[in-house]
């Protein structure tokens, strides 16, 4: 009799324990109503609990860059969570270094908002906003590159530094399940506040560039967010080398326009690498900047000029052309924009020629 009572008591106790666990788990895992987020020690903001931090921040107009749309596979959407956020998740650890873990860095797309949190987000990201824009013009630069002018609504208040980039939202089309963001440098100068221009080279099977090249029309409406990036001209006395490939000319067009408008005096050479003459564009514009900016010159270079190009300019890979141009680059600064492969190769050349890595600036849009 005693053993039966004991068994019943044990079972009842176990049941109560499991029920308690379920209550705790529900409290922990389920949507938890309004939750307060404190960002950079500012005033708390109230968000709805239960959603990923990345989405909650977006709802507050705070855009954290992400290359995978919050799927936890790119590891870009890192923020510091000083309080709250729960334990580190197995989906986060592969993307975090031991130092980042020690510094309470987390992947904002993986952390669910369930309790009051204190966050630290770089101030530059807090300046990022979303803007509706209207396509004012699409102007072909080459057979596979187009310049897109995006007009702002009146008094939009978008401002940026020459060299920065924006993310363009590609709306749902042709089987896309949700909008996708891609990054593009601004080619127009910061003094122009009514519109921005972007240069987009077509990428085979690229989600955004296919949309822009095949479907986008003047008059269409899009959304952008930005500005992003710390690629801008350092206003030092150091001589600069600018190296651009393909659509990588875009930020340099903004920088050169800014230099011309603001009368910035800095010796600078722009090397623009292309395969053949049909890949070159805006050469007249660069000639104009040579006239307007003292100490500036532009050097187009073709790696495989076609016979019909009748090319008499520099030939070879852009790395070879740059290396030929300087005995030593000690004391200079390097600015790079192009494909990741070009950037990596140029960094090797510039460091071999004497530019320390901390004076080489680039955005790989990563």
């Amino acid at each position: 009799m005693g053993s039966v009572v004991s068994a019943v008591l044990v079972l009842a106790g176990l049941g109560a324990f499991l029920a308690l666990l379920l209550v705790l788990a529900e409290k922990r895992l389920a949507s938890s109503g309004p939750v307060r987020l404190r960002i950079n020690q500012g005033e708390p903001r109230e968000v709805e609990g239960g959603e990923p931090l990345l989405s909650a921040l977006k709802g507050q107009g705070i855009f954290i860059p992400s290359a995978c749309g919050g799927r936890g596979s790119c590891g870009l959407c890192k923020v510091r969570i000083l309080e709250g956020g729960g334990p580190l998740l197995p989906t986060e650890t592969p993307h975090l270094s031991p130092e980042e873990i020690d510094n309470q860095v987390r992947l904002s797309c993986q952390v669910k908002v369930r309790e009051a949190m204190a966050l630290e987000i770089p101030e530059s990201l807090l300046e990022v906003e979303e803007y509706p824009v209207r396509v004012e013009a699409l102007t072909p630069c080459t057979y596979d590159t187009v310049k897109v002018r995006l007009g702002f609504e009146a008094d939009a208040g978008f401002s940026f530094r020459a060299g920065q980039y924006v993310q363009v939202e590609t709306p749902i089309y042709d089987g896309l399940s949700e909008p996708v963001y891609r990054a593009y440098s601004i080619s127009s100068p910061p003094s122009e506040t009514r519109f921005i221009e972007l240069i987009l080279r077509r990428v085979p099977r690229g989600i955004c560039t296919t949309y822009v090249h095949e479907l986008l029309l003047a008059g269409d409406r899009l959304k952008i967010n930005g500005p992003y990036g710390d690629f801008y001209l350092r206003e030092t006395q150091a001589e600069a080398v600018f190296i651009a490939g393909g659509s990588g000319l875009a930020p340099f067009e903004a920088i050169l326009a800014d230099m011309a408008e603001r009368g910035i005096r800095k010796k600078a050479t722009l090397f623009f690498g292309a395969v053949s003459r049909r890949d070159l564009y805006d050469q007249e514009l660069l000639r104009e900047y040579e006239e307007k900016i003292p100490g500036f010159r532009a050097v187009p270079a073709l790696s495989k000029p076609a016979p019909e190009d009748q090319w008499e300019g520099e030939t070879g890979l852009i790395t070879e052309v740059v290396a030929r141009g300087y005995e030593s680059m000690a004391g200079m600064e390097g600015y790079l924009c192009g494909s990741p492969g070009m950037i990596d190769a140029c960094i090797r050349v510039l460091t071999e020629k004497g530019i320390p890595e901390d004076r080489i600036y680039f955005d790989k849009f990563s």
Partner: protein
Amino acid sequence: MKQSPQLQAAQARMAPGALTMDGFLGTDPRDLAEILEDDEGAVRRLGLAHEALAADLHRLTERAIGGFGAPVAEGPFELCACEAMGVLPCPFGEPGLHPKAVIEARRTDTGERLSWTALQVHLIRAHGFYEGRGSPFRLEPPVLARFLGLHPPPQ
């Protein structure tokens, strides 16, 4: 091989429009686990390993990217990389970001052509994944091995 929750999540990331416009699975009706298992068998029957195929693809990819968009020669291969700014994550959720590059390759001795992406080098090496049937970049292991000139060792 069982379709684990991790593989299920990876399969979701491989859908069209998730990471790339066409996705990674094409028209293949099989689960990711089945695709991996079948290609594992195909590579084994060739007497090869994923690492060997990936190593050659990696070498050719690096060489092609070094041409900055212009055609380059490497042994019997003529290679050209179309590289775009930006990066792609691994759909299996592994850390790291990979360049966006499509490599077009032609064997000058046979005229055979093949194209692949820089991300595929990682997918083959780390995951034994050659994409699904009907995917624009599906690499059939026997076709890839023949193209690369890799032959099974003598029995």
